[in-house]
């Protein structure tokens, strides 16, 4: 009975083990259940008529030809939704968005009408047959032009409104001004500075582009008055609340199910017109309605990210000690402000922009602007604008280093928040929980032989016959994730807590239900590992369920690296409630006092006596069979976790590139990523998440951009043009780690999946710019594709 401790430990497959994934069995056999796999009896298909122009008045919509096609059930426009008051919907950012274009079109590919038909082929025919007449208006694509005095009014529905959801609007195309920090103090630091640097940079518009597009199957049962919707949503509970508020159906009769999701990366947080239309269509027709976006629709209309025009400034001493930071951003939000941020933060967590550095005075300001582009502004694999913030500060530190002729590693070391300064309150008011940046930096520099690399670079530069330029990129980022404490973080008033319900069954297996939803992160595997360690039950017998609002406790979903920091804590604390009850039962069974018991892996035992014990399995049986007198039977618990603070994962990334002097092609020779995400739950999964995040970062830095011509035509909205790297371009990744647990998280875990995206993007820019640093170049805007790098080679006189 008394197997060796380490065997008992191993049998649990708990925290720290590279447990193979429980979800894989269905995916490798083609038995996943994604939204487009769902079929319901009598199901119809919806397709969307979209605007071919970016800014226009709708003169007339003629449905007749479409309705005449056999198999077409309905064609609906804004006018049809008006009586239901569903032609506009509130956005998560406090704005409104047209569900179907109401008299006016605000961006190319905007939803203008929907058709519902027997199958997707007939629906596509019907889309072609709907005739819409437009009166074109001048389109405004550049946010700076949008703010000019005589710029066309884009949002006529807001005309005359000088107050927006986030305070004063000073111009008809202005959305909000948001700022943070102490302006006066920052200005004073700049007046007194020995050195200052300024750099403008543009973080281009990109798209998360998960391999599965968005879609839903809405099914309204007119007899029961119940609405069930399968939807590709990273936040099903929020969707339920919003749908109930919009439709008037009680929340108890709305069931939202996120099935298997083919990647999210922020694309699947928002609530899109297509979802609302499918739900309306199902209510109107009394039949299930499926809507699946195609790739062009996905890239053109749902959820862009970034589009920040940023200016950074640093004040410093001659020795490179930073004394002040100022940041100014013009944020292009497109036609409607539908950013998916915590409601009170129109620029998300952008004020993490002081990064890993001890900067005494700082101020940042962001102005949101309307243009004739798709709405969005989502957190593409990041925690609400952290990517933009990290990009800015990491670039600025490089710019300063270059100006002062100090090494990139040295200037970072000089300005890092020191280990003993944690918990550290930044000039923007964030309380960084823990960190050890110096140790991490040294580990990376040693691992790659940084000095050797610099020597090699000097030699390459000195050799006029070298066919390549060599660049070394270095970044030391800190993220803020795990939104978040409900005293400051909410979405439409709902606090950003998360939840877990665990039931231990009589025979010692268990089921856990969660308010989050996995999109590839492997929750079914890792959550079970946490419970296994906490409760001493093998993870193999722990079932994890998420995504069905009828069974799962309310939670805010999975994005912003919040699953482990928030839901992971809920799991631990729900487990601990069960643990506490189990201890009482064990004491009862062993007829001793609770104080005489100690916990050991999978059992309570009498202190100092290995022969007297009760395993969790024994206790589970007893909980249903012979609980102590006066105790409720059963062994289950629910915990809603409202985090006291965010968590602050960090990392040091280093990249070496070789740029072909003739073609501008950039080869990533080496990429070394050290991450510190606190306590590590499943190293295999962490590495996988890091590989994936680095690859997405590589895509953003080296090739992704959604561009528009002057008329507002979106260019490159197919996978022909939008860069998704294949296995050939993708670099090989080297990963490493340090462990600095979060002191306020019950497990010490901080969240990891977004760090590699956030941290790698500035690393690539740092490396590419570094290749040109000796030629006086301080910054190059992304994407660093061969053409653009070649232009720099020309401008710098490297090639002619």
């Amino acid at each position, binding site marked *: 009975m008394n197997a060796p401790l380490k065997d008992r430990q191993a049998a649990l497959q708990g925290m720290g083990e590279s447990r193979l*994934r429980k979800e894989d069995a269905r995916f*490798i*056999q083609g038995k996943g259940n994604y939204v487009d796999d769902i079929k319901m009896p009598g199901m119809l298909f919806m397709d969307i008529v979209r605007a071919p122009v970016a800014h226009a008045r709708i003169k007339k919509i003629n449905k007749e030809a479409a309705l005449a096609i056999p198999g077409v059930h309905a064609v609906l426009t804004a006018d049809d939704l008006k009586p239901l008051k569903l032609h506009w919907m509130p956005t998560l950012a406090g704005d409104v968005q047209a569900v179907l274009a109401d008299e006016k079109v605000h961006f190319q590919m905007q939803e203008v009408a929907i058709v519902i038909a027997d199958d997707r082929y007939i629906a596509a025919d019907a889309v072609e047959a709907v005739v819409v007449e437009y009166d074109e208006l001048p389109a405004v694509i550049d946010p700076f032009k949008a703010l000019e005095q005589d710029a066309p009014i884009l949002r006529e529905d807001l005309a005359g409104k000088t107050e927006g959801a986030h305070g004063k609007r000073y111009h008809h195309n202005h959305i909000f001004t948001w700022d943070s920090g102490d302006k006066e103090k920052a200005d004073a630091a700049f007046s007194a500075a020995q050195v200052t640097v300024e750099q403008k940079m543009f973080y281009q518009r990109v798209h998360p582009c998960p*391999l*599965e597009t968005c879609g839903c199957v809405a099914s309204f049962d007119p007899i029961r008055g119940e609405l069930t919707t399968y939807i590709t949503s990273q936040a099903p509970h929020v969707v339920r609340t919003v749908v109930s508020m919009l439709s008037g159906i009680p929340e108890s009769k709305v069931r939202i199910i996120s099935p298997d999701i083919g990647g999210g990366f922020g694309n699947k947080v928002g609530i899109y017109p297509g979802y609302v239309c499918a739900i309306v269509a199902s209510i109107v027709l009394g039949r299930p309605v499926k809507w699946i976006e195609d790739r062009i629709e996905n890239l053109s209309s749902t959820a862009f990210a970034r589009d920040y025009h940023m200016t950074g400034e640093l004040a410093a001493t001659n020795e490179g000690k930073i004394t002040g930071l100022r940041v100014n951003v013009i944020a292009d939000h497109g036609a409607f402000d539908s950013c998916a941020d915590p409601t009170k933060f129109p620029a998300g967590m952008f004020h993490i922009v002081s990064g890993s550095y001890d900067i005494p005075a700082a101020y940042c300001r962001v102005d949101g602007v309307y243009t004739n582009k798709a709405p969005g502004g989502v957190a593409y694999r990041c925690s609400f604008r952290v990517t933009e913030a990290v990009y800015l500060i990491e670039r600025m530190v490089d710019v300063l280093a270059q100006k002062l002729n100090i090494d990139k590693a040295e200037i970072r070391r000089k300005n890092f928040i020191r280990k003993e300064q944690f918990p550290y309150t930044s000039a923007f008011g964030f309380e960084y929980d823990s960190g050890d940046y110096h140790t991490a930096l040294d580990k990376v520099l040693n691992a790659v032989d940084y000095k050797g690399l610099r020597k090699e670079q000097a030699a390459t530069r000195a050799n006029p016959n070298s066919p390549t330029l060599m660049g070394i990129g270095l970044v030391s980022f800190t993220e803020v994730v795990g939104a978040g404490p409900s005293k400051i973080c909410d979405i439409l008033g709902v606090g950003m807590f998360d939840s877990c319900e665990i039931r231990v069954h009589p025979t010692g297996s268990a089921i856990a239900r969660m308010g989050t939803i996995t999109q590839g992160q492997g929750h079914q595997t890792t959550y079970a590992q946490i419970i296994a360690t906490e409760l001493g039950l093998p993870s193999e017998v722990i079932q994890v369920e998420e995504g069905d609002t009828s069974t799962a406790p309310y939670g805010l979903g999975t994005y912003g690296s919040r699953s482990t920091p928030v839901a992971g804590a809920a799991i631990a604390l729900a487990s601990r409630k069960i643990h506490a009850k189990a201890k009482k039962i064990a004491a009862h069974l062993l007829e001793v006092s609770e104080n005489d018991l100690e916990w050991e892996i999978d059992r309570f035992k009498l202190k100092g006596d290995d022969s007297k014990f009760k395993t969790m399995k024994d206790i589970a049986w007893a909980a249903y069979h012979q609980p102590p007198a006066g105790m409720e039977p059963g062994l289950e618990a629910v915990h809603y976790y409202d985090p006291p603070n965010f968590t602050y994962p960090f990392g040091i990334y280093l990249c070496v590139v070789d740029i072909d002097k003739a073609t501008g092609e950039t080869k990533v020779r080496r990429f070394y990523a050290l991450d510190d995400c606190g306590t590590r739950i499943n190293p295999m999964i962490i590495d996988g998440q890091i*590989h*994936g995040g680095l690859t*997405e970062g590589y895509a953003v830095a080296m090739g992704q951009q959604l561009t528009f011509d002057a008329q507002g035509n979106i260019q490159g909205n197919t996978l*022909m043009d939008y860069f*998704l790297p294949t296995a050939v371009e993708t670099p090989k990744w080297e990963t490493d780690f340090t462990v600095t647990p979060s002191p306020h998280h019950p497990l010490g875990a901080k969240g990891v999946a977004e760090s590699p995206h956030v941290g790698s993007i500035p690393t690539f820019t740092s490396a590419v710019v570094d290749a040109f640093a000796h030629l006086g170049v301080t910054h190059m805007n992304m994407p660093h594709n061969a053409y653009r790098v070649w232009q720099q080679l020309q401008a710098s006189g490297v090639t002619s």
Partner: protein
Amino acid sequence: MSKQIVTMTINGKKVEKAVEPRTLLIHFLREEMVLTGAHIGCETSHCGACTVDVDGKSIKSCTHLAVQCDGSEVLTVEGLADKGVLHAVQEAFYQEHGLQCGFCTPGMLVRAYRFLQDTPDPTEEQIRMGMAGNLCRCTGYQNIVKAVQSAAKKLKAQTKESVAA
């Protein structure tokens, strides 16, 4: 629209169905045959999520008509396992953590299956090139490459065994 009869063998089973000539193979498989393993990620031949094997070649079934497969042998991810025993590529993707959201996986597996038939002893570079028609947004490919390498080893060992037997 008038329909046309097509006959093909799918995962070893003969089927005969009337389809509209414009029906894409991916829709035929997913909707008529309820083989929902292969997915749609782009409908423009770029992503490879829809990859199936037709007459010994990897085919992107989003840009292939069902009627083009009249008389063909079609293999999808659902046909890879043999009487409940996973194929070496399936086992390897599991062991090496070669998948995350799983959306690209059916296409990847069917492609890896064909690639290893054609290139039983591949270098890493060959694997990267040979799998380049299949996009993955989650894994960064590193573990997919490892999985294909390990499946190659296992398949070679199996061939040796069967030769020896």
